[in-house]
């Protein structure tokens, strides 16, 4: 490690602080907003010190929004539940399909293999709007419009390529001879896959699953077009706070806090797995 001058250390500290403040400020501000009423929020100049209120959270959880124009039903908790169902459904399906596929792409070199793998990845590059219009027409034909199954299916465009490409890398890092040794001892190909390859790639699979969960959770456009009120996730549901009598900043802030909390926790958790997964690669035989 090279020695740094005092000035260098101070400069680095300052730069880091600046970046941290830049990225953390909005999150802190949202957190503060979520404990204020609309009047407090819109006060000019804004104040750091205020009397906190839980009214926003109460409104969200009870589903009753009192505005100047009267009482409004909101379905935030339902949206949160939808987000959870849709994202986890999508991730589970993507894992079931993607992990075996990733293994196949990693282990077997077959005709058009690279092409197929890349095509799947390219779903991530395509703008969602490109597929949405034809997709919604098809979905109406097929009766998949506004169903959990339909939305989970579309979410595969988000989750599947991620899982496929991340997990494939993990499988490629495992020496195939570890599986070969197991197979020689009298085990079948599929046993080697489930008992050797999957556990060894476990941290990678977990990381890929959590990452794609977060991506699904944050998706907005697919659900906006394909789901009606009772199937909408939080990202779309938050639009309900833009009401006839104004924008309910306090509730929006509380809703954001509630909806990022699960993904934030997951992200912290996934980070641990990512590190573990990467260190496994270093000791492969």
């Amino acid at each position, binding site marked *: 490690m090279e020695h740094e001058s005092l000035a260098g250390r101070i400069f680095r500290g300052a730069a880091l602080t600046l970046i941290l403040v830049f990225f953390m400020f909005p999150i802190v501000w949202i957190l503060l907003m979520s404990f204020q009423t609309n009047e407090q929020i819109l006060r000019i100049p804004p104040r750091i010190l205020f009397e906190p209120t839980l009214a926003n959270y109460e409104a969200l959880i009870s589903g009753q929004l009192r505005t100047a124009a009267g009482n409004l039903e909101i379905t935030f908790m339902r949206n949160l539940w939808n987000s959870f169902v849709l994202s986890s459904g999508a991730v589970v399906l993507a894992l079931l399909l993607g992990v075996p596929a990733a293994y196949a792409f990693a282990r077997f070199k077959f005709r058009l293999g690279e092409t197929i793998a890349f095509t799947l990845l390219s779903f991530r590059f395509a703008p969602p709007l490109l597929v949405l219009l034809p997709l919604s027409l098809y979905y109406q034909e097929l009766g998949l419009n506004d169903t959990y199954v339909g939305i989970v299916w579309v979410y595969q465009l988000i989750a599947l390529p991620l899982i496929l490409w991340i997990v494939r890398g993990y499988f490629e890092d495992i020496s195939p001879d570890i599986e*070969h*040794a*197991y197979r*020689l*001892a*009298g085990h*079948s190909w599929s046993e080697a896959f489930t008992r050797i390859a999957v556990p060894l790639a476990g941290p990678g699979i977990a990381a890929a699953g959590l990452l794609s969960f977060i991506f699904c959770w944050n998706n907005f456009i697919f659900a906006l077009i394909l789901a009606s009120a009772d199937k909408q996730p939080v990202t779309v549901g938050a639009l309900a706070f833009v009401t006839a009598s104004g924008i309910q900043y306090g509730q929006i802030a509380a809703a954001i806090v509630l909806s990022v909390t699960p993904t934030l926790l997951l992200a912290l958790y996934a980070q641990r797995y990512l590190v573990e997964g990467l260190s*496994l690669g270093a*000791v492969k*035989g």
Partner: protein
Amino acid sequence: MGMLELRSIDKVYRSRGRPAVHAVRSLDMAVEKGEIVALLGSSGCGKTSTLRMIAGFESVTAGSIALRGRRIDELPPARRKVAMAFEGYSLYPPLTVRENIAFALKSQQLSRSEVSRRVEAIARLVEIDDILESYPRVISGGQQQRVSLARALVRDADLYLLDEPMGQLEPQLRAVLRGRIKSLLAEREMTAIFVTHDQTEASALADRIVVMEDGVLQQFASEKELKERPANLFVASFIGEPPMNLLEMEVKQAGSGFRLSAGPDVAFDISGDGLDQAARGVLAAVPRVQVGIRPQRIGVGEGAVRVRIGSNQWLGDQSHIAGECAGYLLIAVIPNRIAARPGDVVQFAIAPRHLNIFGPDGVCIRHAEVS
């Protein structure tokens, strides 16, 4: 019928965008029960490919493999009854050394105490009994290699394939293990093929040696035979330390025999009686042949061949004397020391009966006499 029979095996690796690699070419080989065979050859000559085809991780492009009389080349690896120690060790990281070895016994349905008895016995044999509870990532490469070897040897299998099983070990330990493994294999009548590029190891451990080059089996014979009756130029120049001296000589018919010469001092009369029909035919037809002489067969001090000494080394039990003669480098190995210095001219004695003669295609048409 042999224990293992390979019939005209070919292996071609085809990958997109790269030229096909013909790694093994029409390989024929039969191994007897209880025999230990070494696959000897330079890097990339197809040794590992051969083992992997027998184990079942690579398909054969052409040919057939039979083990104990059953065709195995279409069977999945699990049903071939073959054990293998891999070049890259390939231990299972989440398990301890003990579990890694015991893992190989799982499908044999042994009692728990029998498993641990066997694991401990083999661990003692390869000197890893003190690291049985360690994990693969914390032990050295040499230790990993021995764990991998133990994992293969602990099983009951019809055939053991060992890919460079001792490459990472220190010479002393290697010599000890070689002896122990040889007696283990002999005691249990285990049939084994191991890969090595170390001639000493091949001759110490193997009953017979396969010399491979460029995917082609050059010769499959005992060490003694490889040395005394090399099938071709490649084997002649590959086997032996230092390698055989090779000179190109002119051929002239001389009565019923032939006269081979490489310059005025270096000329030999080969009588026609010692040659078979084919050899006589070749010698009569070609103007020049390659001639090989083992360094140990050259006498130093007197003789017709005058050599200008380039180096004279005493290795403690033998002298290696190298010199130049008729444009060729000749090396002689003798059991005593001589006083020659670089630049001196010394006489070498080469007897015609000690010449190996190779035809234009490299095949040996006449072997040197033994003794």
